[in-house]
């Protein structure tokens, strides 16, 4: 059966149903869109917050910042919580590190101050002790000048001994003074030829005659305070001569380069030093012979050791009885010596 309906009517029904379909589609779409927007916002916000917190922590190095916790329980909330825990751990460690740093800085400052005090003490002591010593020497010489002919020979000899002890003490005080100044009052570093330094030491310390001082390797040019290098080579060379048992001894100086460090060896063919005394030779005022036998302050190697160490180097001794002695010291290539001054 065919029912005839008006075309218009028929289309109207179709039109109605498609409108309602479209509108319901539109509504559903809108809902889905709004819903997903909500979900997205709910998911994104904590991540954006996390990222911005991370950025602030990074740029401000402030470990007390925390990522805001909006929702707990889901993975993102856990992520934020872990992130915050991590921040707290870092913050705690940072705090401890800073405390330790402060303690270290205070200890350093204390060490620097007590070092300076010690050096000042040595300077003042040696300086002020020289005045009465000079007075004793003057008075002894005036007694000799004014009434020498009245003295017995024994008294004259005593007076001479008195003056020789005064001279010895004067040398000891000079050495102490020099020791207290090492590292404090070095001259400016400049480029110097070690061969020239050694030549100066030879002119100063090696008596004309059979003693020979030779370089067995090339000696370098290096940047250093000339006075410090002179002190080291001068004391090592004069020591080797002073303690040698023959007049025709040989001293050999050699050099090698280890990475950024110069290494020099001063070797003699003298009587050698028993290994049990090796530590002692570097101590202050130590001599292995009576000062009446070999006049010396006992400060030479202490001066050398302090100078080398002030430059960041090390010194060692190799020696045995009857096999000569070798002192080897290192000297970092570029050293910037402490330039503090003791003003008194």
């Amino acid at each position, binding site marked *: 059966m065919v029912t005839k309906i008006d075309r218009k009517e028929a289309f109207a029904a179709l039109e109605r149903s498609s409108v309602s379909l479209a509108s319901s589609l539109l509504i559903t779409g809108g809902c889905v869109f709004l819903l997903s927007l909500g979900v997205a916002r709910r998911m994104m916000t904590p991540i954006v917050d996390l990222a911005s917190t991370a950025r602030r922590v990074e740029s401000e190095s402030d470990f007390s910042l925390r990522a805001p916790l909006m929702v707990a329980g889901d993975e993102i909330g856990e992520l934020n919580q872990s992130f915050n825990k991590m921040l707290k751990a870092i913050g705690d460690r940072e705090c401890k590190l800073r405390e330790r740093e402060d303690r270290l800085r205070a200890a350093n400052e204390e060490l620097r101050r007590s070092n300076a005090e010690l050096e000042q003490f040595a300077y003042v002591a040696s*300086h002020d002790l020289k*005045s009465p010593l*000079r007075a004793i020497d*003057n008075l002894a010489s005036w007694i000799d000048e004014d009434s020498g002919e009245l003295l017995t020979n024994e008294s004259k000899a005593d007076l001479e001994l008195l003056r020789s002890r005064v001279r010895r003490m004067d040398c000891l005080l000079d050495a102490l003074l020099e020791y207290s100044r090492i590292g404090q009052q070095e001259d400016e570093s400049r480029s110097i030829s070690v061969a020239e330094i050694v030549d100066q030491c030879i002119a100063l310390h090696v008596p004309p005659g059979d003693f020979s001082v030779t370089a067995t390797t090339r000696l370098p040019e290096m940047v250093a305070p000339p006075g410090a290098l002179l002190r080291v080579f001068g004391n090592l060379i004069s020591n080797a001569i002073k303690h040698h048992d023959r007049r025709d001894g040989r001293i050999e100086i050699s050099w090698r380069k280890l990475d950024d460090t110069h290494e020099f060896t001063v070797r003699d063919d003298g009587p050698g030093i028993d290994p049990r005394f090796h530590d002692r030779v570097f101590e202050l005022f130590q001599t292995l012979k009576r000062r009446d036998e070999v006049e010396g302050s006992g400060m030479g190697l202490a001066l050398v050791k302090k100078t080398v160490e002030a430059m960041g180097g090390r010194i060692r001794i190799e020696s045995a009885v009857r096999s000569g002695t070798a002192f080897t010291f290192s000297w970092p290539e570029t050293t910037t010596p402490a330039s503090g*001054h003791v003003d*008194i």
Partner: protein
Amino acid sequence: MNASERQVHILMVDDDDVDIRAMQRSFRKAGIDHPLAAARDGVEALEVLRGANGKDRLPRPCLILLDLNMPRMSGFEFLRELRRDPALSDSVVFVQTTSDADSDKAGAYRHNVSGYLIKEGSGGGFDRLAALLNQYLDSVEFPPARTGAQA
């Protein structure tokens, strides 16, 4: 009157009696016949130079031999006071000390001393200083004597 004929009064400012005696001996040995007076510190030296506190004023021309480390008023404090005083600011001063510290040398020359000498070597180098002063006193003209108070 030329340099070699007039008398210069020398004031040694030093707290060590033995140093003062050493200077007297060295003066005698060198044949210096200019009078040598002594003050034990900066305070006493200023009194002698100004004729204050019952001291006789040291006649001009005079030359001051100054130690640096002294009780009451050190050499540097004395120099500051001396250079500030219009009546004494032109004084000729030699520093004579055991200190060879650069800071002391620089400080002394900033106060316009005529020389910086170190007491060292046997006898403290007083013979050497006496020989230097002997020539100096014979050859150098001193600031002219002034009449009345200085403005």
